[in-house]
C-alpha cells in the first residue's frame, strides 16, 4: 500500500487486513497505562486540512502520537494557503520538509488523487516517498471513515458478509456514503440506500447497492442503519422543503428505531444534527454505536499509518 486514496483501491483481503490490524492494535493498547507504541518513531505525519474537522483530524493526530510518530497540523487558515499558495506547492513544500505521510482533507473531489500524482512525480525525481491519505475530498471519498464504520459493524455484528446495511439521508453530498457503499460491498454486505430522490447522485444505479425510498419498509430487515448528516454547507439550492419535512420522511425517530430488529446497530459518522436526522434518544440509546465509531477511528487510523509507514518501502 503506497497511498490510501479510495476504498476501491482495497480488495477484500486488504480491507480485512486493515480491520484485523486495527483490532490487534486496540487489543495491544487495552487496559494499559501508557498508550504509546514505538512503531513509528522518527516518522513525520502531517495533517493538512482545508475543511473543518474535529474527529478526523484529532484521531489522525492521536493515532500518529500513540505510535510515536511526530505529528504536525496544518490548516488552511493560518498557513500560506491563506496567502494564495496552491495545493500543489503546499504539498511539495511539506514533502520537501521530510513528511513521511500527508493526511489531506480538501473541499474539491479528487484533490487527494491529484496530490498523490504530484508527489509521486516528485518522489521519482528525488528518491523520497511521501504517502498520501485521503481524509475526505469534496463529495467523493472518505476511506478511513468507511473503514472505521466497517470495524464497528464487525465488532457489533460479528461479521459483515451477508449483513444488510441501510445508509440513509444526504447521499448526494456524502463522501462517507460513497466510501461505505463500495467498501461494504467489497466485504460482501448487502447495502441499501434510502434518500429523498433529490439527494441521490447521478449514476447511483451503477453503485453496488440497492436504492429504496421507503425507510419504514426497509428498517425491519436491516442489521445496521447508518444515518448521514445533511450537509447544509454543500447545498446551493433547495433539496427538500423543510428540515421538519426531512425529519418526518428520513429522520430516525424513536418510533422508527423501534422498527429495527433487536440486534440492529445505529451508526452516524458525526457531527450529528440531533432532532433532524436522528432523535437524541436514539443517538444516545443502547443501539447507538456512535462513540464506538469514534474510538475505533483512532485504531483504524493507526492501522492505516502502520500499513503505509511501518514496513519497507516498495
Amino acid at each position, binding site marked *: *500500500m503506497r497511498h490510501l486514496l479510495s476504498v476501491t483501491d482495497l480488495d477484500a483481503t486488504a480491507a480485512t487486513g486493515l480491520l484485523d*490490524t486495527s483490532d*490487534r492494535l486496540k487489543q495491544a493498547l487495552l487496559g494499559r497505562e501508557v498508550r504509546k*507504541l*514505538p512503531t513509528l518513531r522518527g516518522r513525520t505525519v502531517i495533517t493538512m486540512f482545508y475543511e473543518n474537522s474535529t474527529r478526523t483530524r484529532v484521531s489522525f493526530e492521536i493515532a500518529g502520537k500513540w*505510535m510515536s510518530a511526530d505529528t504536525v497540523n496544518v490548516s488552511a487558515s493560518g498557513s500560506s494557503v491563506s496567502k494564495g499558495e496552491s495545493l500543489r506547492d503546499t504539498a511539495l513544500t511539506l514533502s520537501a520538509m521530510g513528511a513521511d505521510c500527508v493526511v489531506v482533507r480538501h473541499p474539491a473531489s479528487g484533490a487527494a488523487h491529484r496530490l498523490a500524482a504530484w508527489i509521486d512525480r516528485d518522489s521519482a525525481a528525488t528518491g523520497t516517498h511521501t504517502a498520501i491519505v485521503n481524509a475526505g475530498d469534496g463529495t467523493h471519498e472518505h476511506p478511513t471513515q468507511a473503514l472505521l464504520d466497517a470495524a464497528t459493524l464487525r465488532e457489533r455484528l460479528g461479521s459483515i458478509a451477508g449483513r444488510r446495511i441501510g445508509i440513509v439521508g444526504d447521499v448526494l453530498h456524502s463522501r462517507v456514503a460513497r466510501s461505505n457503499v463500495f467498501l461494504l460491498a467489497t466485504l460482501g454486505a448487502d447495502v441499501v440506500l434510502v434518500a429523498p430522490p433529490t439527494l441521490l447522485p447521478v449514476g447511483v444505479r451503477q453503485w453496488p447497492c440497492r436504492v429504496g425510498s421507503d425507510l419504514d419498509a426497509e428498517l425491519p430487515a436491516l442489521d445496521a442503519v447508518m444515518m448521514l448528516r445533511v450537509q447544509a454547507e454543500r447545498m446551493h439550492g433547495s433539496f427538500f422543503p423543510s428540515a421538519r419535512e426531512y425529519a418526518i420522511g428520513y429522520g430516525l425517530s424513536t418510533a422508527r428505531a423501534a422498527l429495527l430488529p433487536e440486534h440492529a446497530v445505529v451508526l452516524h459518522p458525526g457531527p450529528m444534527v440531533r432532532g433532524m436526522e436522528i432523535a437524541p434518544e436514539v443517538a444516545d440509546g443502547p443501539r447507538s454505536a456512535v462513540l464506538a465509531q469514534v474510538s475505533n477511528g483512532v485504531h483504524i487510523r493507526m492501522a492505516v499509518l502502520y*500499513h503505509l509507514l511501518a*514496513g*519497507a518501502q*516498495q
Partner: protein
Amino acid sequence: MADDRRGGVTGASPPDRELLSAADVARTIARMAHQIIEKTAGADGVVLIGVPTRGTVLATRLAAAIGGFGGTTPAVGSVDPTLYRDDLRRRPARPLAGTTVPEVGLDDALVVLVDDVLMSGRTVRAALDALGDHGRPRAVQLAVLVDRGHRELPIRADYVGKNVPSARDEQVLVLLGETDGRDAVLLRRGAGGPRTDEGGAR
C-alpha cells in the same frame, strides 16, 4: 518412520532431519514444566506469556503441565512483539498477532516468556519492551523449546528444551498439533521453503 512424518511439510528437496519426535516434544515440555516449578518454588505468582503463534501454544501446554505436576497453574497470556521490532522497515508491513494480558496483570508477577525458537534474540528483546509497557513484573525469565545459537544480543534462556547447533542457512521448524496438525521439531537444510515464524530472523 521419519519418511511418513514429513508429509505435513511441503516443498523441501533435501529431506528434513527430525530433531524431536512427537514423544520427544511431550517429554521436553514436561521436563521444562518441572524445571519451572523447581526454579520458582512451586510456580506461585508465575505468569506465562507466549510469543505468538507457537510460543502461546507452548505457554498453554506448559501451564497445564505445571498444574498437573502439583504446581500452581499459572495464568497464560500472549504478547505480540511485532510493534516493537527493530527490523520493521526491512520488510513490507506484516500482520499483527494477538496480545492478551491475563486478568491478574503483570505488576509484581514472575513472568516466564515462552517462545518456540531462540536465535538472534531480537524477538525476545522486542517482547521484553512490549512486556514493560503492560506492567512491571517482579522478574522476567525466558523459556524456549529450541535454542539454535547465533545470538545477536546479550540474551539467554532460563529454560531450554533442546540446544541445536545449526548453520545460519538452516531452518528449525517447530510443529505443534494446535497449529500444524502434529508435534515435531525439524531441521531443514539450505535456503528456501516456508519459514516457521512470522517474526522474522530469529
